[in-house]
């Protein structure tokens, strides 16, 4: 049977974290009807020519959603992808709108917590991505 390469990732710790907020997070993920009405409420979505990868629902589905879907069994590359979503595509301005009142910023912040615990976070000094 194929076993995922989770070397360098403390999957037990991720699982523990995921379980600590499981009820609300799973509920929020289930309540999302994938309607995309949240799109325009994100200023980054508007500023990036309506790029759908900046849409709030895309961001939480592809971060905390992935972690719950895989029950924390993710490899380092997956965590790097999540890092790009939750830091590069979101500034946690908390202005996102959801018709069902899903607490999107909390989901993004929770994904950040999990990434940070695994040592996966942006090093702004090294990267200087947007430096002039």
């Amino acid at each position, binding site marked *: 049977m194929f076993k995922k390469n989770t070397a360098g990732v403390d999957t037990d710790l991720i699982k523990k974290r995921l379980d600590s907020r499981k009820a*609300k997070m799973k509920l929020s993920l289930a309540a*999302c009807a*994938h*309607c*995309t*009405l949240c799109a325009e409420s994100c200023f980054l979505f508007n500023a990036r020519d309506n790029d*759908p990868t900046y849409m709030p629902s895309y961001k939480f589905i592809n971060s905390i959603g992935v972690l719950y879907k895989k029950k924390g069994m993710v490899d380092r590359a997956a965590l790097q992808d999540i890092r790009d979503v939750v830091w590069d595509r979101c500034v946690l301005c908390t202005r996102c709108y*959801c018709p*069902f*009142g899903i607490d999107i910023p909390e989901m993004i912040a929770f994904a950040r917590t999990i990434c940070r615990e695994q040592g996966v976070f942006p090093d702004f000094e090294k990267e200087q991505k947007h430096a002039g």
Partner: protein
Amino acid sequence: MYDFIRGPMVWISIAIFFGGILWQVFRFLTLSQAIEEPKLKRPAGLVAEVPPAGVGGFLHALKLSIFKTSPGMIIVTSVFHLCLVMVPLFLLGHNILIERAIGFSLFSFSERTSDVLTVIFLFCGLFFLYRRLFLPRVRIITSGYDFLMLLLATAPFITGLLAYHQLFDYKTLMVLHILAGEAMLICAPFTKFVHMVYFFAVRFSVKGEWALGSGNRNW
């Protein structure tokens, strides 16, 4: 078999539907708690904006809502959801069956009205299907599950419409119609349809910028 799905199975589905809703409401209440004082208050010098009276007030509220950015979607989704609830509830055929079963029923739309509303509902469903297939922002987060949900919501209407107009085999369509309706009722509280509970629970009771109600609870 036919007697079972049009008899006890209907009551079982209705019981699961309402039981599931109650369970979800209970879940929401355990996950959130009542709050006493609002943390944020309008500064004393800042006067609250008074919306214009009458129709103007309604339009003003619309402009401040999501209607301003996505008017088409809001109109279609409102019509879709209204039809989804109203058509089966006020359908003459359903009410005759309910009357026979419990001796009481709601008022009924004329058959013509229900027929037209069903077609309108299905066009709204087509609009959603179009969005899922061709709009990049919807497509990027769409999975097979979303199509299944759309099918689950529209199947009772498609089969009901075909059965009413006696297209294809009536008996088979009736069985499919009953099964589709029961499947929708059973699945509603436990799938993505749970948004029907959380829309009211969260938007009307949780405090927040977009709250529609008093907001006396918080997560």
